[in-house]
C-alpha cells in the first residue's frame, strides 16, 4: 500500500489543507508521496519536502498547470495512480474540482470530504450538511479520497525528503486560464485562522462589516460570513462559511448577526468555542453556542473590541 497526496499550493507555499490530507494519508497505510504540480512551483515543492511522515515529493512544472486546470492535472495524475493504493487531496475548492475527474477516468467512485479513516478501505464522511455521518467501504482497487481538513491535525515538519522531477503530462487544450481575482486581505485565511469573526444578514450592509473587521484585527482573526451576507453583497463569495462554502473549526468562532441556518452550522459547528451575538433571543445559532449574548450587535461589537 502507498498513498499519493496531491498538494494544493500557490507556487511558493502549500495551502492549508495539504498537511491535513497528509495526516489522513498516514492512517491509510504505506509510503506517502506528495505531488506538487504547477507553473513555477519549485518553492512549493521544497516546502512540501519538509513535511513529516512523507517519503518523497514529485515536482512537475509546466505552464499548462497554471490555475490547476482539472483537465491537465487529471491527465498527469491518472497515469501515476495505478502505482498507489490511494490518491488523496484536500476537500477544498481545488480538490473538489480536480479529484472527481481523476476518479472517473480511473473508473473509481470517489469518497468525498472524509472526516475519519476507520480502515484503509473504510471512511467516515458527513452528509446532509453534517447532520448525518456515514461510514462507507470502497470496493475499488484504487481509493480516490478528498479530506475535510477539520477532521485531521496538520502534519508537522520533519526533515527533508528527496524531490524528484516529473515530466509534464499533455496539455489537453480544452480550457484556457484567464486569471484570478483574489480577495486581498492582510488577515489570516479562514482555513488557517485560530479565531474567526463571522457576520450575517444582521450586519445590514457592507459598510457595517467594518466594525467586525476592527474586532477581527484586535483578535488577529479571519473574517467570515453567512450565505445571506454574501448573497446580499456585503462581502465577497470566498468569505462564505457553510455546507457549500468553507468548513472551518477554529479555536474560537464569533458569530455576529447570524441566525444559524443548518447550512451555516454545517460549516462551523466543530469549532472549539462558539460565541453568538444576536438580538433575537430565539436565534437557532444559540443552540450550538458555548456563550451567547442577546444584544444589538451594533452596541455589543464595538464594546467587545474596546474591552479586549
Amino acid at each position: 500500500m502507498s498513498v499519493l497526496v496531491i498538494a494544493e499550493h500557490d507556487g511558493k507555499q502549500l495551502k492549508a489543507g495539504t498537511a491535513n490530507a497528509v495526516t489522513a494519508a498516514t492512517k491509510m497505510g504505506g509510503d506517502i508521496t506528495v505531488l506538487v504540480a504547477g507553473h513555477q512551483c519549485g518553492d512549493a515543492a521544497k516546502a512540501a519536502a519538509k513535511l513529516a511522515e512523507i517519503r518523497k515529493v514529485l515536482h512537475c512544472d509546466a505552464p499548462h498547470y497554471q490555475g490547476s486546470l482539472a483537465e491537465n492535472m487529471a491527465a498527469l495524475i491518472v497515469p501515476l495512480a495505478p502505482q498507489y493504493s490511494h490518491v488523496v487531496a484536500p476537500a477544498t475548492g481545488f480538490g473538489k474540482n480536480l479529484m472527481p475527474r481523476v476518479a472517473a477516468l480511473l473508473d473509481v467512485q470517489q469518497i468525498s470530504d472524509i472526516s475519519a479513516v476507520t480502515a484503509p478501505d473504510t471512511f467516515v464522511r458527513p452528509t446532509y450538511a453534517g447532520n448525518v455521518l456515514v461510514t462507507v467501504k470502497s470496493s475499488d482497487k484504487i481509493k480516490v479520497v478528498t479530506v475535510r481538513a477539520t477532521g485531521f491535525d496538520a502534519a508537522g515538519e520533519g526533515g527533508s525528503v528527496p524531490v524528484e522531477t516529473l515530466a509534464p503530462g499533455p496539455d489537453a487544450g480544452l480550457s484556457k486560464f484567464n486569471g484570478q481575482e483574489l480577495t486581498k486581505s492582510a488577515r489570516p485565511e479562514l482555513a488557517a485562522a485560530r479565531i474567526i469573526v463571522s457576520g450575517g444578514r444582521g450586519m445590514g450592509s457592507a459598510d457595517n462589516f467594518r466594525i467586525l473587521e476592527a474586532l477581527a484585527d484586535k483578535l488577529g482573526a479571519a473574517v467570515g460570513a453567512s450565505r445571506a451576507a454574501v448573497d446580499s453583497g456585503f462581502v465577497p463569495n470566498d468569505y462564505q462559511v457553510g455546507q457549500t462554502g468553507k468548513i472551518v473549526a477554529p479555536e474560537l468562532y464569533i458569530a455576529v448577526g447570524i441566525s444559524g441556518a443548518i447550512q451555516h452550522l454545517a460549516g462551523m459547528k466543530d469549532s472549539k468555542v462558539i460565541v453568538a451575538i444576536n438580538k433575537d433571543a430565539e436565534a437557532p445559532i444559540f443552540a450550538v453556542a458555548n456563550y451567547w449574548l442577546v444584544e444589538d450587535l451594533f452596541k455589543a461589537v464595538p464594546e467587545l473590541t474596546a474591552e479586549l
Partner: protein
Amino acid sequence: MKVLVTVKRVIDPYVKVRVKADGSGVETANVKMTMNPFCEIAVEQAVRMKEAGVVTEIVVVSIGTQQSQETLRTAMAMGADRGILVETDAEVQPLAVAKVMRAIAAKENPKLIIMGKQAIDDDSNQSGQMTSALLGWPQAAFISSITVNGDSADVTREIDGGLEKLTIKLPAVVTTDLRLNEPRYVTLPNIMKAKKKPLEVVKPDALGVDVAPRLTTLKVEEPSRRGAGVKVADVKELVSKLKNEAKVI
C-alpha cells in the same frame, strides 16, 4: 444550441433530517421532498439562456424513483422543454450518474450540460466533474457566470480565494454555484403547461449502464451534539468567560 440539465429529488433543505432507528439510512417516509437547490439554479440558467436566444432546446434529466417525475415537471414548469427520467429504485452514486449522463449525451448531442455543483443530501460534489471526464469535455465547476461565444464559453468560477476566469471549448459541462442566479417561482399556468410536455422514462439497463454502487454503507449515525451553552449578561461577562473559562483569548 441544445442544453441538458440534471435535476435531483432530495429531502427539503429546511427539514430536520433524522437517522432511522435501525441505522440503515435516513428517514424519508412522509418527509417533504424538493428539487436540489443547485439543480434549480441549473434549470434557471438554461431557461435564461433560452430567453436570451442562446439556447434553443432544454432537456432535463433526472435519475431516481418514479417520484422524480414530479421534479422533472417542476423543471418543465420553470421552462425546460422535455424530460427524461432514468428510473431506478437503487442508490445511484456519482460515478453511475456520470455514466448515465454520458449515455444520454451520446443520444442527445447537447452543446452544454448544466448540473448543480452538489446535491444537498449526500454532499458528494462529483457528478458534473465526472460527467465531463467521461465525455472528454472541458469542465467548469462552481460557476457564478457564463457567456457563450460561438464554440466557446467564458465562465467565472467561485474558488477559495475569490474568483477565477476560464474560457472553455464547447461542448462542456458546467456546475452551478449559489451566485449564478436566483431561480424563479413556478406559476400555476406554467405548472399546467408542464403537464403536457413530453416525459420519457428509460431504465439504466436500456442505456447500457451498470449503476451498482461501489461504496457500501456500513453505518449511518448522527454526530455527537454540543453541550448546552451559557447565556452571558453583557460584553464584560463574555470577555471574562473567554479569558478565564474557555481560555481562548
